[in-house]
C-alpha cells in the first residue's frame, strides 16, 4: 500500500504532463531528424528499388523482417503485464502497466511498417488485405504472411482498445484539470466519464473482458509470426518448437524493453515513489524465467538438429555457431540465456544501473536472435552453389534508425499527453480516504 492521499497521487502523476522543458524539445528535434532521415532513405528505396538494400538471392529477407519480428516481440510484454498479470491479480503491475501497454501499441505500430517497407511493390500493399480484388481475386490463407496480417491487425486493435479503455478514468482526471484546447481534447477522449458507480461497474467488466480477450493473443500472435518461419521448409526455420520459442522470446525481449523504458522514465519524472525497485525486481525475476526458457529452446534446437540426423539441419546449426554470422549467434546466446541469470544475484537485480544496462544487452541479444534465425538460415540452405551472404546497406540501417525514431516519437508524445502511470489503478493501491470524503 502506498501511503499517499488521492490528491497527492493526482498531483504527482499529472506532473509528467506539465509543459516540457528545453531538453525535451531538443530530444524531440533529434528524434524528428532521425525520422526524417529514415524517411528519406525509404523514399530513395522506393525510387530505386530494393536493390539499395543488402538483400539478394538467397537472402530474401534481412534486417527489415528481423526488426519486424523484434518489434512484434516487444509488443508482447505490454499485454502480458497489463492483461495476464491483471487476471492473475498481480497488483504490483498497477504502476507500470500503462507504460508497458503504450509500448505495446507503439511497438505494433512500428512493427507494422516493416512488412510494407520490405515489399518489392509497396504501393500494392493493400493486395495483402482480405477483400475481393479485381472481381474475384482473394488472398491465400495458406500463406503465413496472410495469417500475419490478421494476427498483427487483431493484436493492434485489441491492444489499442484495451489501452484506451484503461485510460478513460484517467483522462477524466486530466480533463478536470485542463484548460483551453486541452480541455476540449480531453473532454472528447474522456467520453463523458463521470465516475458514477454504474460507469465503474461497466468499466470494470469491460476491462476484465478485454483483458481476457487480450490474453490468448499474447500466445497466438507471436505463434503466428513464428509460423512465417516454421511453415517453410528452410533448414533452421522448419521446426515445431518455433511457436512457444518465439512467444517466450517475445516476452523476454518485451520485459527487457519495459525495463529499458521504465528506468529512465521513473528517474526523469521522479516516480520513484510509485515505481519502486520492487517492481523492477519483479520484472527481473520474470526475465530469469524467460531467459531460462530461451536457453532451453536454444538447447533443444541444437539437440534436435543433431538427434534428427537431417544433414541440412545439422549443417545450418553448425553454420550458426561457426559460420559468417557466428558473432551475432554468440551475442544472442550469451545475452539471452546467460545474462538474465545474473539477476539471480539479489544485488544485481536490486541495482537500477545494472538492471538498465543488462536490459539493453538483452534487447540487443534478442534483435540478434531474429537476425541469426532469418539471415543465417537463408544464407546457407539446401543448394551449396546458391549460398550467399547478406550485409545490411546504409538504406536499411537508416530505415531501421528511422523506425526506432518513429517508436520514440510516439513515446515522447505519450509522456506529455497521457498519464504514464495509471492514476486509477495506483489509487487502488492507496488507502481509501475516510468515509465522509474529507481529504486530509
Amino acid at each position: 500500500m502506498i501511503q499517499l492521499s488521492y490528491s497527492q497521487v493526482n498531483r504527482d502523476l499529472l506532473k509528467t504532463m506539465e509543459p516540457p522543458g528545453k531538453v525535451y524539445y531538443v530530444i524531440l528535434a533529434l528524434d524528428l531528424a532521425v525520422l526524417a532521415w529514415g524517411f528519406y532513405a525509404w523514399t530513395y528505396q522506393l525510387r530505386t528499388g530494393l536493390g539499395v538494400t543488402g538483400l539478394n538471392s538467397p537472402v530474401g529477407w534481412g534486417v527489415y523482417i528481423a526488426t519486424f519480428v523484434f518489434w512484434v516481440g516487444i509488443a508482447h510484454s505490454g499485454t502480458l503485464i497489463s492483461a495476464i498479470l491483471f487476471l492473475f491479480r498481480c497488483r504490483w503491475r498497477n504502476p507500470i502497466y500503462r507504460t508497458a501497454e503504450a509500448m505495446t501499441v507503439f511497438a505494433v505500430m512500428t512493427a507494422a511498417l516493416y512488412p510494407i517497407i520490405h515489399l518489392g511493390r509497396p504501393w500494392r500493399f493493400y493486395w495483402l488485405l482480405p477483400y475481393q480484388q479485381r472481381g474475384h481475386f482473394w488472398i491465400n490463407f495458406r500463406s503465413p504472411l496472410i495469417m500475419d496480417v490478421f494476427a498483427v491487425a487483431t493484436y493492434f486493435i485489441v491492444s489499442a482498445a484495451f489501452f484506451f479503455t484503461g485510460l478513460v478514468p484517467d483522462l477524466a482526471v486530466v480533463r478536470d484539470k485542463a484548460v483551453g484546447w486541452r480541455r476540449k481534447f480531453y473532454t472528447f477522449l474522456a467520453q463523458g466519464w463521470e465516475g458514477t458507480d454504474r460507469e465503474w461497474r461497466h468499466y470494470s467488466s469491460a476491462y476484465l473482458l478485454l483483458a481476457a480477450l487480450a490474453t490468448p493473443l499474447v500466445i497466438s500472435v507471436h505463434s503466428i509470426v513464428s509460423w512465417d518461419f516454421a511453415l517453410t521448409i528452410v533448414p533452421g526455420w522448419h521446426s515445431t518448437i518455433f511457436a512457444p520459442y518465439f512467444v517466450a522470446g517475445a516476452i523476454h525481449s518485451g520485459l527487457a524493453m519495459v525495463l529499458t523504458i521504465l528506468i529512465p522514465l521513473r528517474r526523469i519524472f521522479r516516480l520513484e515513489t510509485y515505481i519502486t525497485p520492487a517492481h523492477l525486481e519483479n520484472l527481473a525475476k520474470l526475465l530469469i524465467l524467460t531467459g531460462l526458457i530461451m536457453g532451453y529452446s536454444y538447447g533443444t534446437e541444437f539437440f534436435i538438429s543433431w538427434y534428427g540426423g537431417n544433414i541440412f539441419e545439422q549443417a545450418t546449426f553448425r553454420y550458426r555457431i561457426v559460420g559468417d554470422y557466428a558473432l551475432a549467434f554468440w551475442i544472442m546466446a550469451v545475452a539471452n540465456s546467460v545474462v538474465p541469470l545474473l539477476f539471480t544475484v539479489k544485488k544485481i537485480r536490486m541495482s537500477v544501473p545494472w538492471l538498465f544496462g543488462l536490459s539493453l544487452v538483452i534487447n540487443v541479444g534478442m534483435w540478434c536472435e531474429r537476425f541469426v534465425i532469418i539471415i543465417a538460415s537463408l544464407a546457407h540452405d539446401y543448394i551449396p552453389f546458391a549460398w550467399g551472404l547478406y550485409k545490411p546497406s546504409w538504406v536499411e540501417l537508416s530505415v531501421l534508425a528511422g523506425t526506432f525514431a518513429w517508436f520514440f516519437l510516439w513515446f515522447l508524445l505519450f509522456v506529455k499527453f497521457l498519464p504514464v502511470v495509471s492514476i486509477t489503478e495506483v489509487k487502488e493501491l492507496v488507502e481509501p480516504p475516510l468515509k465522509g470524503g474529507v481529504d486530509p
Partner: protein
Amino acid sequence: MSQRINRRNFLKILGVGGAATALVSCSAEPPETLIPYLIPPEEIIPGVATWYATVCRECPAGCGMLVRTREGRAVKVEGNPSHPVNRGRLCARGQASLQGLYNPDRIRQPLLRGDSGQFQSISWEEAERLLVERLADLRRQGKAKGIACVTPLLSGSLDHLIGTWLAALGSKRRLTYEAFAYEPLKAANRIVFGLDVIPSYDIGAAELLLSFGADFLETWISPVAYTSAFATMRAYRDGRVGTAIYVGPRLSLTAANTDQWVRIKPGTELYLVMGLIHVILKERLAPSIPQKEAKQLKALVKAYDPEAVAAVTEVPAGKVFRLARMFARARPGLAIGGGVAAASRNATATLVAINLLNYVTGNVGRTVRFGPNANLAKLATYRDMLSLVKAMDKGEVQALLLYGVNPLFTLPEAAGFRAALKKTPFVVSFAPFMDETTAEANLILPDHTPLESWGDYSPWEGVHGLMQPVMQPVFKTKAVGDLLLSVAKRVDDRMAKEFPWPTFYEYARDRWGELHRRLAPMKEFEAFWEEALRSGGIWKEARATPVRLSPEVFQMAFEPPELDGGAAEAFHLLPFPSLVHYDGRGANRPWLQELPDPVTEIVWDSWLEIHPEAAKRMGIGDGDVIAVTSPHGALELPAHLHDGLHLDTVAIPIGQGHWAYGRYAGGRGANPLVLLSPDPEEVSGGLAWSATKVSLRKTGRRHHLVTVGGSSQQFGRGIAQTISLAEMTELAKDGEGAGREAHRPKQIYPPHDHPKHRWGMSIDLNACVGCNACVAACYAENNIPVVGKERVAEGRIMSWIRITRFVEAQQPNRPDIRFLPMLCQHCDAAPCESVCPVYATIHTPEGLNAQVYNRCVGVRYCSNNCPYKVRRFNWFQYAWPEPLNWQLNPDVTVRTVGIMEKCTFCVQRIREAEDRAKDEGRVVREGEVTPACAQACPARAIVFGDLKDPRSEVSKLSRDSRRYQVLEELNTQPAVTYLKKIRQALE
C-alpha cells in the same frame, strides 16, 4: 540509301525454316525505316514470327542458324536443324550474335580521321569517294601492289569477290587471318600424309578419345559439332560408354568433362605421344601396319621408352604403359591435338606424333578422315601475317584494307603490328565495331553485321551455308561486298566492266549459279536458290581420300621446345581461348560477359590462374594483383588459385583486356598477347602460343574477382549424382523403368489434376558439359536483363537457368567436376506456391509453376522457401541501352522493378504450339514444344515434353534407370528429372 541496294529487297526472297512460317514472295517495297508497324508490309503478320536461315559467323565453325524475327526485327537465333555442322544446336557465342547486331557501340556511319586525329562522321558518298580516289591514285602511280587486304576466313562469294577485286586493282596482297589458325595441324598432316589439310575427326565414333590440349568442347575447330559428337560418344550403350582422356597442363572445361586428366609438363606432350607409340609398337599392339613402316617407325620412337618419357613429361611410366594399351585396345580410338594449350615450339612435331599414333592404331580412315576437310586450312599462317607486318614496316604497303579482323588485339604485341600500322599511310577498316585496330584506321566504312548481310560460308568441303539478311540494317552501314562493287565501278571503266553486278546480292547469286551447275544441274536455278535459302544452304557428302605415310615424316626432327625467357622467368605461360570471348570478339556482348566461366565461375573479368601450391610459395592469395613479366611485355592481372594446373604453369584467358571495343569490353583485365614471343613456330609458321615464360611479382594491390556460386562442394547432399558403369549395367538388365518411381508421402492437400498435359523436362548429366549455351539461349528468349559485375557480386544475377558446378573431393589427375543445369523445377508440390500471400505463383493445369508478374507484390517469401533457389527478384528497374532493346522478345513480358521472376519452361512457346494445335484441331505433338535451353543444348542433354503421355521421350526418361530428382526427399515432386552422370573407374 539508294534504290540500287537490292539487298533491301530481301523480303522478296523466301526465308523459311524451322517452325516454318512461309513468307510469301511479293513485290511490296520494304519500309525504309525499322518501324514496321507504320506501314506494315502485307506479308508480315503482326504477332507471327518469321524465320530466316543463315550462317553464324561468330567463329570459323560456320554453324547454321535460324533467326526468328518479329515485326521486322531479329529476336532470337537458333541452330538450323538441317545444317550438317551443328544439327540445330548453337553455342552461347552464336546466341549472342544478336548482341552484335544490336550492339549499342556499333559504328553507325562512315568515319574519317580528321587532322586533329579525331574521327568525324562523313556521308557514305564522301567516304566512298575518298576510298575510290585513293585507290585510283595508287593505281595510277603504279603502286597498286601496295594495297593489302586482310580478312577473316571467308570461303565463298565474298572471298572470290575480294580476291578478284584486289587482283583487278593490281594487288595480290590478300590474307585470310584468324588468331587460331591451326597451322601446326595443317603442317603435321602435310608431313605425315602429304596433305596440307585439316581432316574430319569423328569423335562420336571413338571408343577412346585422347585429347592433347585440344579444347574441342570450347573453341577447337567446331565446338558445337564436337560437343554433340562427344555426347554421342559418352552415351550409355550395351554396358559401355566412351572414354575420354585429356592430356595437358591445364584442367580446361574440356578436360573437366573427361574421365581422366593427365597433368603434363607444358610442351612435353610430344614425348608422351612418342612414348605411347613406342609401347604400342614394342608390344605389337598395332597389327595393321606394314612391316617396313613398323620398322621405320620403331626406329623413330626408339628413344622414347616410358621411363625416358616419364622423366621429361612428369607422367609416371606405368601410366604411359596403361594409356598405350588402353588406346591400342580401343576400336576405334581417336587422338587429337592442336589446341592452343599444346602450341609450344614443337607443336607441329607433337601433331606429327599424334598423327602417327592414330596411324599405328588404325584410326586414320576411321575416326580421322581426310574428307570432308575443313576450309580452315585455307587460312594464312601467322608467319604470313608477320611478312605483312614487315612489308608495312618497310613502307611497301600503301593502303591496308581490314575487314573483320582485329590484328592489333590478336597478334602478339611484340610482333610490331602497332608500329607497322603507323607507317602505313592509308588504313581502311570495314569493321562494324570500334575495335582496337579500327580505332587506328584513317577511314572507317562500317560493314553490316552478318545478320544483315548476304553471303555464303563453307566451313567444310561440301557444306555451303547461305547467308541472308534477316532484317533491315540497324544503322547506316553498308555491306562490304556492295561497297567493293560500287568502288569497282568508280575506279575506272575497265574495272567497272569487270564487275558489272549492281549489288553483292546479284554477285552471290551468280556465284551460286556455278554451284548450281555443279551440284544440281537438273533443277531450275530459282528453285535451287530458294531451296538453299530456305534450308540455309546446300550440303553434299564429301568422300574421304585414303592416305599413306609420306616419307617426309621420317626426316622429322623431334626437338625439345625452346622457351622464351631465362631463369628469371620461372613460370610457363599458357594463354587459352576463352569459351565465350573466343579471340576477344565476344567481349562486347553483355550476355557473354555475364556468363560465368564454367571452370572458375568468374564473370566480367580476366584473371591469372596459378596453382595453389605455387601461390603459397610466393605468398599469393586469391585476388592479389600480380605483375606478369615476360621478355616481351608485361601486364597486371588478379590471381585466381586453380589446382587444375601444372605447378610451374600460369594460365590467362584470351579475349579480355580490350582498350577499345565498346562499353562492355573496354577496361576489363589484360590481354595475354602482350607477353607472347612474336617468333613463329619453325615448321608450321604458326604462333607458338605457349612458348613463353614469365615471372610474377605481387603488386600489393587487390582486385575483386566476382564469381557466381557459393560453394563448390556438395557436403553429401546428393545434388549432382553419379552412377558407376558397373551399377548402370546392373540396372540396365532390369530394363526400362528400373529407376524407382519417386517415393510419394501422404499429403494433406490432394495432388494437382492435370487434365491435358503435364509438362516436364529431363536433363542428362552424363551429356551436359557445362558450356552455358542454354543459359545464353534463355537470356535471349526470355528478356533476362544483364546486371553487370557489381550486381553479380551482390548476388543479383538474373539468369533463370544456371550451370551449378560441383567439385567433388579432388583425386589427383581425376577430375570429378559435375555440371548441373539448375532451373525452376516446376514442382507439383511447390514450396513457393503455398507461401505466396497473393497467389502470384500458382500451379497451372498443365503442370507449370506459373509466376503472375502483375499480381506479385514482392515479398520474396517464395524465393526464401525455394530449396533450389531458382527464383530471381527484380531488385532494380533494368534497362537495355538502345538498340539492345530491339532484341526483346515480344512474346515475353519485360519485368518491372520489385517483382519475382523465374523459369517458365518457355510458356510462350507452349502457348504458341497449343494455339497452332487448336487451330489445326489436334493435340500438341511430341517434340512440338522445345524451350530455348533444350533447343540450344549442343549435347542434347535437355529433353522437354509431356509427362502425361507415357510414350513421350521425357516420360521414358523420367523412368530411366539413371533417374533422380534433386532433393527428392523434400517431396517437392519436381517436373524436372535428372539422369545421373556415369562414372568410369580408370586406373
